[in-house]
């Protein structure tokens, strides 16, 4: 290809004028087209984190159990006995909107590769997916495609999908979100990293062949959408889960001995970013002969080879003399294996094609010298608290409100989705989707790992700082609720256009909120990813940071679930209810009121109450537990009733000022627990000792949810409205 590189060509590659002059200045010449492509791939937002880097430094990333924080393929935490958990969440938003099946499928494939690249066998998948309003004509097909894509990939690999989150909001009409998370198990003495070391070490290409799919994928994910979105389809990669399964087994087989020096998967920006990152981390040069790269199509140019985002490929730096041994393993699994180059002392990336050097760029220009922006941003003021006219509440019927909330798209049961995900393969899933967190056993041990994904776009949009704190707390509560000690989190930061002050401000303040809460709770961030430019025709999404939390249950027989267990047991609400309705589902769905601040977050209470709940669970004093989140107490209790097929008689609550505020308010740091009568004294003692407020909510009964003559609803009726919405929506 002999395209003359000009400023216009650079702009077509997603670089701006200043960036192009900086490249020419650094190189002291005009780059050729392949070199320009490499710069554009490394300097785009997706790979360079140029808008976010400054603020990501504020995150709390260290802790006693942290083996690897952000900066590697995934984060790693120690769970004792030489076992470690490798995990990360990643976005695949832009491709999933363009082509939902392949976009979502390759999102799952990509995150699994990030985990097994480090030597871990994936043991669980999760996902957080967000769609436009159900009335939007694209929503149904996007949802169907995304769910099929996630299932199609994860089911084939044979890794259970154990939990997830689905939401609908019109701000996602033009940009859906697909965030995929994977957890893997590794021996902490056998972890593999991407840092190259040693000169003249063979660089090996393994996996699928390189095709013309996904070219410019990373640049596409670093731009907003317009009317010409259909034209972007070729930038979406195509997944092949079968090859990934073979690649997984082959890599783990090769990792069993000491042949590998460094390994990196070819994800965004394919061969370009994997080779540059490995060389950069090792402060080395790398020389590749592109004629040796296995290609799926004929006559692929260096430009195409370097930009292709074909899936299921890995780059390995091997010890000298191990080539034959490694090749034997990849032959057994029928995968391509090719020595394509070597490490050098030049500190440059040098590419050879048809015996000619087609690229020569100092590595530091691509990595350390990549632009970093200190973008302008605007603080979001805490909105004024609303004064609800409670006289209007008189016209409401509390039973109807409850039913409407239980069938709300964001509250209703998502069985239609998780039935399509294999959630039991590997034989260790002890808590399936639909609870507070998914739980898998650490194979062959008494330990179990709990994981949950959470986000609250409404709260974050109303006040990003509070919203950022709130999601970390929600993740913490979800893990506590199943009896797990929270260990660490991964975050997927989905935002609009960072070049807009408002969006950048949302990002900065959400990150600050996440940092503050995770530091206070000793719940560090060990990995993550940033997705900006979730914007279509000038309209951006609500700020949606997603938190993936991971916790440890020392002995899995102590795990708790949320469904009510036994008639006659006592139900407590633990934590204080102030009745905060602003930004609640009740305010939005029943009162049609979208303003006001999110519930405030008190980190002391979160920590104190969370740790106390964990103590109650570990001492076997409570038999079920559930955190109170969207929809408040009555929603939470109803879900516990529905899952357990039991009713509850709610007491006539003393000093209740307003039942709507009490039952539907979304105050934080609250849990609902079921306590056998004989344990009440001990539970009270522990709660009082820790100065924790609690309400004796009621007693479990056979059939109905009842309260003071105001509510008397059979469980079947609640169950029907709760379970029907999604299936009904998809079938029509």
């Amino acid at each position, binding site marked *: 290809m002999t395209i003359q590189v000009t400023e216009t060509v650079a702009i077509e590659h997603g670089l701006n004028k200043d960036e192009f002059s900086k490249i020419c200045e650094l190189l002291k010449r005009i780059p050729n087209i392949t070199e320009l492509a490499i710069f554009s791939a490394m300097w785009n937002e997706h790979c360079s984190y140029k808008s976010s880097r400054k603020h990501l430094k504020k995150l709390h990333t260290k802790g006693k159990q942290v083996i690897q924080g952000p900066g590697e393929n995934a984060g790693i935490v120690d769970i004792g006995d030489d076992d470690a958990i490798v995990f990360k969440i990643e976005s695949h938003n832009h491709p999933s909107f363009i082509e939902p099946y392949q976009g979502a499928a390759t999102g799952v494939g990509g995150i699994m590769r990030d985990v097994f690249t480090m030597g871990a066998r994936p043991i669980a998948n999760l996902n957080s997916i967000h769609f436009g309003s159900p009335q939007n004509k694209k929503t149904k097909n996007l949802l169907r495609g995304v769910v099929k894509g996630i299932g199609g990939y994860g089911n*084939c690999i044979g890794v259970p999908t154990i939990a997830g989150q689905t939401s609908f909001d019109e701000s996602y009409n033009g940009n859906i979100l697909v965030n995929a998370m994977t957890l893997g198990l590794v021996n902490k003495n056998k972890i593999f990293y991407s840092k190259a070391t040693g000169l003249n070490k063979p660089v090996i290409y393994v996996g699928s062949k390189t095709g013309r799919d996904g070219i410019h994928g990373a640049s596409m994910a670093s731009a907003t959408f317009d009317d010409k979105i259909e034209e972007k389809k070729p930038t979406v990669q195509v997944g092949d889960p*079968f*090859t990934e399964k073979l690649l997984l087994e082959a890599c783990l087989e090769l990792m069993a001995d000491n042949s590998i020096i460094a390994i990196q998967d070819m994800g965004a920006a394919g061969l370009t970013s994997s080779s540059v990152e490995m060389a950069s981390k090792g402060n080395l040069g790398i020389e590749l002969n592109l004629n040796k790269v296995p290609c799926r199509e004929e006559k692929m140019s260096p430009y195409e080879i370097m930009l292709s985002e074909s899936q299921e490929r890995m780059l390995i730096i091997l010890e000298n003399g191990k080539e034959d041994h490694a090749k034997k393993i990849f032959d057994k699994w029928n995968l391509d294996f090719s020595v394509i180059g070597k490490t050098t002392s030049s500190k440059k990336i040098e590419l050879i094609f048809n015996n000619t050097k087609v690229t020569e760029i100092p590595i530091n220009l691509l990595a350390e010298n990549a632009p970093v922006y200190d973008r302008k941003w605007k603080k979001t003021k805490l909105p004024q608290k609303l004064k609800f006219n409670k006289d209007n509440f008189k016209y409401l019927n509390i039973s109807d409100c409850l039913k409407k909330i239980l069938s709300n798209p964001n509250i209703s049961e998502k069985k239609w989705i998780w039935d399509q995900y294999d959630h039991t*393969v590997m*034989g260790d*899933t002890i808590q399936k989707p639909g609870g507070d967190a998914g739980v898998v056993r650490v194979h062959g041990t008494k330990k179990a790992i709990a994981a949950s994904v959470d986000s609250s776009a409404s709260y974050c949009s109303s006040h990003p700082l509070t919203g950022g704190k709130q999601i970390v707390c929600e993740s913490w509560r979800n893990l506590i609720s199943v009896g797990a000690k929270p260990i660490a989190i991964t975050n997927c930061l989905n935002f609009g256009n960072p070049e807009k002050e408002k969006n950048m401000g949302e990002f900065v303040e959400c990150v600050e909120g996440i940092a503050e809460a995770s530091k206070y709770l000793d719940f560090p961030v060990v990995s993550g990813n940033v997705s900006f430019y979730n914007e279509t025709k000038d309209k951006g999404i609500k700020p949606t940071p997603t938190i993936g939390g991971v916790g440890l249950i020392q002995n899995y027989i102590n795990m708790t679930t949320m469904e009510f267990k036994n008639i006659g047991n006592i139900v407590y609400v633990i934590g204080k209810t102030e009745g905060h309705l602003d930004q609640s589902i009740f305010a939005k769905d029943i009162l049609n009121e979208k303003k006001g601040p999110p519930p405030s977050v008190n980190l002391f209470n979160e920590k104190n109450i969370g740790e106390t709940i964990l103590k109650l669970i570990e001492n076997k004093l409570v038999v079920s537990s559930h955190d109170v989140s969207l929809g408040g107490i009555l929603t939470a209790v109803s879900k516990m009733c529905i899952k357990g097929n039991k009713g509850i008689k709610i007491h006539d609550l003393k000093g209740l000022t307003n039942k709507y505020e009490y039952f539907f308010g979304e105050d934080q740091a609250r849990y609902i627990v079921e306590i056998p009568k004989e344990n009440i004294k001990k539970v009270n003692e522990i709660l009082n000792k820790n100065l924790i407020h609690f309400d004796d909510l009621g007693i479990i009964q056979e059939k109905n949810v009842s309260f003071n003559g105001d509510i008397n609803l059979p469980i079947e009726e609640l169950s029907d409205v709760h379970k029907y919405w999604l299936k009904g929506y998809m079938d029509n």
Partner: protein
Amino acid sequence: MKSSVIIFPGSNCDRDMDVALKKFGFKNTMVWHNDQSIPKSDLIVLPGGFSYGDYLRCGSIASKSKIIHSVIDFANSGGLVLGICNGFQILTETGLLPGILQQNKYLNFICKNVFVKVKDKNNKYFKNIKKEILELHIAHNEGNFFCTEKELKNLEDNNQIAVTYCNSNGLEDDKSNPNGATKNIAGIFNKNKNILGMMPHPERMIDKYLSGEDGSLFFENLLGNL
């Protein structure tokens, strides 16, 4: 008792099956698809998964694999061959069992607990099982059993239907049929009843912390009958 589990590229329930067999006392060996022969075994298991990616009809490439001749010889000599999920699909593709497994009626992958009725106990797999109805787990996209009327008549006449989908009371109706299978069929035998193919995964139901424990009954019983 000795068992062998065949691993095809793309199998993903091979380890789960190995764990289950060993838990109930089998001495199990894993056998690679490219091997020529299978060690001496009392039972051969074709596990679930997506053999060779299942990019053609499910199980069709596996039915032409190198190891499959040994499986067929073993089955024809009366050896016990159990195919679960993808294993069942492979057994129909080899012709060891009649019929085919089509895509699920509602075109979605289904992962959930189901009830199945044990239709025949005059065989080594279900003899002495006390329960009539088992709670097992399915996870498949192509489990919709279909066969010709003649084949169905043979299956019925020879009591070759092993298990059928039903509700918790044993009623075999449309509502309890998860995938549209003919006559709610979840699993069948060959004529000699040494070969069993079924969609549900007993290996996922082997302790009380999992989806249930009826899989334990299946394995304990099978071992006892050998």
